[in-house]
């Protein structure tokens, strides 16, 4: 898009540069630090819950399956349309079946396929709803799908996510310095967003806070509820570390 500017200096990492070899090596090492597949999968899993309230995004974990991420977002968009237009058990069932399939420990790939297929159906439903609302169907535009709202109105979905994320972030930040406050913020999140899109992350914070406060029995009990609810969560390993460190 932009022509290189002839004023641009030779990059320091370039062999043609007269930069100190130590600096060149440091820049190269910095450039080489990209995340592993596992780290990317964990990130995708973390973003998954942004879009799908009950299911564990982590269960769709394989990195190439990230396509499922947008699919689950589309499911939420479709459900949001349904919610705006009056509830339909069929669509709620769509999410539930994606959840159920994803929770099946034996068939992660099949689960991803099933979720994607369900999502595809939901996208169709969303597109139909969007057309009804006189908005152009786009590949991925929950905002367009939520066309019942005026174009510049705040989006209920995004606003909720932001509120959730802000509260969770505050709880995570507090965890470093004030476990009691972290726990109280996590509990506030649990009250306001019981089945929120970041419910897993909130529970992790709460369990870490309980462990830090030496409330071992509560930490253990809450961790057990966590694994019962999200048996294949990407956070399970972290919880094991937390409880292990706390000698639980």
């Amino acid at each position, binding site marked *: *898009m*932009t*022509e*290189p*500017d002839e*004023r*641009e*200096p030779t*990059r*320091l*990492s370039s062999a043609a540069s007269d*930069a*100190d070899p*130590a*600096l060149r*090596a*440091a*820049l*190269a*090492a*910095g*450039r*080489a*630090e*990209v*995340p592993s597949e596992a*780290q*990317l999968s*964990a*990130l*995708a899993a*973390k*973003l998954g819950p*942004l879009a799908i309230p009950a299911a564990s995004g982590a269960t769709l974990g394989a990195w190439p399956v*990230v*396509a499922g*991420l*947008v*699919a689950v*977002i589309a499911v939420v968009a479709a459900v949001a349309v349904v919610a705006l237009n009056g509830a339909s058990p069929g669509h709620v069932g769509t999410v539930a079946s994606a959840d159920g399939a994803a929770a099946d420990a034996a068939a992660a790939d099949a689960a991803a396929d099933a979720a994607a297929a369900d999502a595809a159906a939901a996208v169709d439903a969303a597109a139909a709803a969007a057309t009804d609302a006189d908005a152009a169907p*786009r*590949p*991925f*535009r929950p*905002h*367009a799908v939520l066309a019942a709202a005026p174009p510049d109105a705040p989006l209920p979905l*995004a606003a909720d*996510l*932001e509120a959730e*994320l802000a509260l969770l*972030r505050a709880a*995570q*930040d507090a965890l*470093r*310095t004030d476990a009691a406050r972290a726990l109280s913020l996590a509990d506030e999140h649990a009250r306001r967003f019981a089945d929120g899109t970041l419910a897993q992350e909130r529970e992790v914070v709460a369990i870490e806070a309980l462990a830090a406060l030496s409330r071992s029995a509560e930490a253990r009990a809450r961790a057990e509820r966590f694994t019962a609810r999200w048996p294949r969560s990407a956070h399970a390993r972290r919880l094991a570390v937390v409880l292990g460190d706390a000698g639980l």
Partner: protein
Amino acid sequence: MLSTLATDPPAPPRFDEVFRAHAPLVWRALRRLGVREADVEDLCQEVFVVVHRKLPEFEGRAKLSTWVYGICVRVASDHRKRAHVRHESQHDAVPEGRQSAPQLNELAQAQARVLLDAVLAELDDDKRAVFVLYEIEELPMAEVAVALNTPLQTAYSRLHAARKLVTESIARRTAGGAP
């Protein structure tokens, strides 16, 4: 903005495509912008929440990657301003322990990164952002200026100032073995 509608702008890119194409770059850029390894996953999440929210508004006037880098810089800058980050070490400890041959190479890489991050930590946010985007992410200067929403000339000034500081810092650290 209305005038851009005349040419029927293409649909915004899909979120999953943006994520797949940019997640590794976002990760790396955040690290060099001063986000510790322990925090980088959280901050990547934050970047993509913003991307997700703003993608429908993306107008294609900048390259998509430039736009994403701009979000990274803002998220990292906000993160660094939070008090608890400022008082903590900006870089991670060098791993220690038994070293087989491949681990030795990894160790050398890790040490080089620690050096890099220590040097970068001496720059202010503005200079650091220009330096990282040009020298590590290797954006053309015109895109660096767009990502940082700053005049091109300002971006050049910051780059030159940053290069001078980095070069001096490296010389100081490698020559005398000073801390």
